[in-house]
């Protein structure tokens, strides 16, 4: 899949990934790749600006923890993020249904 196609939906994909529970950046990238069977093969660094943006927008919150002697930033969905994810899911269902109806 073209990186730009994925990038347009990256925020929603990250929110959906974190809906399962808190995770750090590397784990978010792995989950995205695993759940899409490798279709979402973005440069992994792309995830970090998106995580920071979502946190600035109040959709995610983060905490620092200590893991094997190094600091790790773990992200979790906020209540606003959950609401936004619900809205994105509805939008996507409507959009995908309409595209499917046209493409056949």
């Amino acid at each position: 899949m073209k990186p730009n196609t994925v990038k347009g939906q990256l925020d929603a994909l990250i929110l959906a990934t974190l809906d399962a529970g808190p995770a750090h950046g590397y784990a978010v990238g792995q989950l995205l790749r695993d759940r899409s069977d490798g279709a979402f093969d973005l440069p992994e660094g792309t995830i970090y600006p998106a995580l920071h943006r979502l946190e600035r927008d109040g959709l995610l919150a983060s905490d620092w923890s200590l893991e094997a002697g190094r600091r790790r930033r773990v992200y979790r969905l906020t209540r606003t993020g959950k609401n936004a994810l619900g809205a994105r899911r509805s939008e996507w269902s409507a959009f995908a249904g309409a595209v499917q109806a046209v493409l056949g």
Partner: protein
Amino acid sequence: MTWTQQLADELGRRGVSARRRATILLEIEDHIACEPASEQRLGDPRELAAEFADELGTQAARGAVQWVFGALALTAGALAVSQLAIGSGGGYPGFDNGYSVALAIPAILLMFVAPQVALVAGSLALLRSLRRRRAPILPQAEIDLLRRRAWVGAGAGLACAIGLELYVIDFLAVMHTTWIVLVGALSATAIVAICAAGAHLRATGRVIVGASGPSGDIFDDLPLLGFLRGRPWLLCAIVAGGVGVLMAVAEWHAESSLSEGLQRGAFEGVAAAVGFLALGRAIGARSDDAGGHPVAD
């Protein structure tokens, strides 16, 4: 040079603050530690740094504009209190009853003219920052326009607050102590707030945004004026004429004197035209481009 060092250098080159750089690098180092030799899968460090800088620069510029507007609102409050409370402070003293006319005239001019410039520039800056609040990245040209509007607003707001402080000093011996203390303290607070907002605005300008695109102009912010796009002199005439007529009518009503109303209206109209000529291009109000550069919401 390692991948992480390249990223650190590139973030520094793009003006990302040391604190923010440290946070980003900690996360990236953790990522690499999870899967050694995975650096190449992170992408090009230059592109990643650019993405961070573009988003941070955009967000910082919008935030700084809102701080400036907050400081301008405080200044407007100080000015409003000074006028509303003037009756209980002893009434209008007359410009030549203070320490010196040389102090009173600049103070009064600053108090009348600067707030209008601050209102226009500050409102346009805030309007653009709110209208484009959902855009993760703005073009550098648009950020420059936002910042110019904020600088003009902050400069005019500072001039107004200084004018108010000069007015207080000039009439120290004439006005009641309560008015002097209240208005003096409020205008001093406004000066401090505007200086702090200006320092913040200056600091946020260090981040280099690489995104290209048009800045847009006043016609993108106020689509009702779209018919004037490419006709800056007609816009200038309408603004100056409108302000002049409005002030003439207001003064005529307040002073029950048509001649005073006309004098005040003529002064305000000329001031608006001069302001438009001097600052119109800086705040994106004076564009000779008939086609314009529409900026999407």
